[in-house]
């Protein structure tokens, strides 16, 4: 089983906070890999929030190809984190040439382009790079997005973190999502490693998505750039989140109504039953069938956790104003925020979405049986 940990803090934190939390939950994962998602960056990236950052792993020849590719587009490197690697990586961690975290300046030609168009182009470029890398086996690209860093590697999370010296202030950020990974159904492939990222949305999951194939088939048939890959059955959660918010224009409170809609009498009693029934029917192929605990990050720095209908996976949220964390297990939360009021810890159940907004002031619990936000406004 995987273990998840995510934290959102007003003050930038080291990703080691999350890696330590994964470490205390080690009994729950097999140390076969780690994935990190950093957002709302501190350190040197604080002043270049708009600059798209490329995250990935490259061979030397891949790096040469990357440079000429980026130059062709007119991207100029603005800042990069250089990691000098020891000759021999720790046991279980593959030997790599270069881990890239590089912020770019937008090409001059993009000036005047709308933000949305720029974002679309960034997705296209990331996918193009991924394709190039897949052809030659010399590039792995996780994200290419402003204010976002992603690191994924095979091996024990703590050893990987030490190997990459993630305790450096350059990596500090206000949002960290981390997953300690166990491989179950799918072969070890870095693209199958959580968290997943698409156009500002990121999710990571604990559990197995048993409805993966019909969901994948449906997403693939939408004709939306970026609904590809599918190396993991959990990648679809990122796509569904993107679809919910970006394509359908529905807020996060609706996400759970799409992936695990209300059933039977619950939907009949809901004040928005007509809307919800329509949503359930029209988005039927996006219903997940778990068991899954999903943690996700939104473009506006909101962090959330949802459980599927079965609620077979562990998950807890707790903290104090200014810093909140979502964790698979209580011990992970204890390790990260020991000095919190534990009586306010909350374990989201089968109807809940736990949301910590960008202000990080409170945990908002959204039950599916509650009226939808538009109703409250009305």
């Amino acid at each position, binding site marked *: *089983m995987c273990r998840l940990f995510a934290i959102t803090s007003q003050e930038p934190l080291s990703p080691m906070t999350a890696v330590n939390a994964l470490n205390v939950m080690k009994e729950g994962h097999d140390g076969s890999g780690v994935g990190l998602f950093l957002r709302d960056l501190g350190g040197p990236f604080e002043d270049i929030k708009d600059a798209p950052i490329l995250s990935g792993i490259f061979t030397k020849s891949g790096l040469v190809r990357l440079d000429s590719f980026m130059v062709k587009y007119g991207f100029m490197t603005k800042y990069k984190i250089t990691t000098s690697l020891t000759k021999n990586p720790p046991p279980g961690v593959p030997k790599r040439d270069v881990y890239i975290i590089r912020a770019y300046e937008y090409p001059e030609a993009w000036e005047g382009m709308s933000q949305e168009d720029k974002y679309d182009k960034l997705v296209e470029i990331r996918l193009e790079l991924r394709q190039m890398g897949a052809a030659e086996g010399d590039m792995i690209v996780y994200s290419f997005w402003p204010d976002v860093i992603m690191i994924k590697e095979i091996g024990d999370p703590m050893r990987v973190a030490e190997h990459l010296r993630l305790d450096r202030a350059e990596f500090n950020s206000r949002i960290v999502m981390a997953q300690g990974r*166990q491989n*179950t159904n799918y072969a070890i492939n870095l693209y199958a490693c959580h968290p997943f990222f698409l156009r500002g949305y990121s999710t990571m999951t604990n*559990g*197995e998505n*048993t*409805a*993966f*194939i*019909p969901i994948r*088939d*449906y997403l693939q*048939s*939408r*004709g939306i750039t970026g609904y590809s890959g599918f190396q993991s059955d959990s990648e679809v959660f990122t796509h569904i989140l993107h*679809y919910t918010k970006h*394509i*359908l*224009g*529905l807020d996060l409170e609706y996400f759970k109504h799409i992936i*695990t809609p209300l*059933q*039977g009498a619950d939907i009949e009693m809901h004040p928005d039953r007509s*809307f919800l029934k*329509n*949503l359930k*029917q*029209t*988005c*039927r*192929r996006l*219903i*997940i*069938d*778990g*068991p899954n605990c999903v943690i996700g990050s939104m473009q506006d720095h909101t962090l959330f956790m949802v459980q*599927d*209908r*079965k609620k*077979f996976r562990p998950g807890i949220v707790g903290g104090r104003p200014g810093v909140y964390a979502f964790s698979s297990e209580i011990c992970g939360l204890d390790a990260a925020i020991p000095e919190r009021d534990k009586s306010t810890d909350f374990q989201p159940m089968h109807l809940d979405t736990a949301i910590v907004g960008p202000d990080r002031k409170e945990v908002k619990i959204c039950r599916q049986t509650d009226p939808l936000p538009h109703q409250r406004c009305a």
Partner: protein
Amino acid sequence: MQADRPITPSTLCIKDLPWQVLWNKEKCALCGRCASVCPVRALELGVFRKRTINTALNLETPSSNLYSIFHGVRQKTEPQHACVGCGMCTLVCPNDAILPERSDEADKLRYHSNAGGLPRTRGGRRNVKDGILDRIKFVRISMLTDPALDAGRHEFELRTLLGRVLPPEENLKFQRENGWIPPVREIYPLVIGSMSFGALSPPMWEGLQMGVAYLNEEMNMPVRMCTGEGGCPPRLMRSRFIKYVILQIASGYFGWDEMIHAIPHMKEVPCAIEIKYGQGAKPGDGGLLMWHKVNKLIAAIRGVPVGVSLPSPPTHQTKYSIEEAVAKMIQSMSMAWGFQAPVYPKISASSTSLAVLNNLTRNPYAAGLAIDGEDGGTGAAYNVSMDHMGHPIASNVRDCYLNLVKIGKQNEIPLFAGGGVGKNGNLAANAAALIMLGASGIQIGKYIMQAAAGCLGSEGDRCNICNIGLCPKGITSQDPRLFKRLSAENVAERVVDAYLSFDIELKKIVAPLGRSTSLPIGMSDALAIDDKHAADRLDIKYVV
């Protein structure tokens, strides 16, 4: 046969028949029940002459013959009286003295059941035991980290949608702008397929309706039943139970005068309207109700004279092309119920199914597509149509589903598959396999006749006389002497039994796969088969 009778080409002996009636003289009470119950009058009183030779022990006394007679049962050998193997004689025999047994070789009757140049017609099924559906296994069992679910105690939502589902973007837009959102029904995925009032006897039809109503109102199972082409009793049309009914309109339009007149008096909108363009048992042929079954009641409901055969044309004659027919009929049927009832066509599985489906994808009113495979049953058809025409359902529904996936409309147009589902008794496994191949729901006919009313048909050409109104169980007969053998209440009870047990078995299949939140439509990764070609054809795993 007497020695002075001529032997004609069609003179057959008992051995030439498909069924031999084994009769035990020792046990027989000579009550005559077997002969009187036999639907084809295959049995008659037999007067047998027996010679006993008394051989003398010495030369003086001459030997003598003793001639005696005894009475018993004789099997007739004329083609029209050939035993159909229904076994009613065994059922009524107080002493278990009689039993029809299937011939150990191919019968000769098949060459002679065309007297007057008329090929054999019959009811029933294709009579092929094997089928690909029985060979499909469910292999993706959740183990270890993600445990299988408890089929008995976990919650399951095993519902499907019947109706045109708009894509999410359009649905939300139409909700905002008060646009027309097509009606969609949330129903149980196992539908009782179209069997007409006329093909079925009054207690059978009523029993099915009662069972369906009970499942809906007492068991919270939204089961639906299709009327078939024989119209619908106006009393049912005007009742609240019509919402559990799918009304069928087919090329004969039987009963639609009555039905249209009932529309203003209807309290509820029917579940849906099915427009029949074809059926799996006799593709390219219209419905057929033989004159035997057209009595006063049936004639009144269908709006026809008594005692005439009712062959429906193979296609809807008022339209010149199928595309136009589909488009116009869907629209006019939608209009009849104020665009509140889903309207969908039913076709026989065919290599042209994809063309129909593609046509429907471009018709915003098309609410689904029902496809009936070659193993579908019927009340009356030519033997050649049943045995040799048609397309297997599995690959047909799979092709259609994958085509919908390709164009991204797999949630918009539900496919309902029928034809031989559960023909060997494995209803839940067959239904689940078709659902995971891409069907949104399943239609059954023969299975429910067997389970709910004790239909005697089998895949061994047993009985199969539904067409001539002589159904010995009273299921497909309009003769009160026969249909009084069947009680509507008993049928209803068995319908409920069959559905409840199906529900448990379906859960026993989906629970180990980890599925409970939604019906696993298109979950083809769960399926495998031990035939490489079949696996490739269906795009599922090959296992040995």
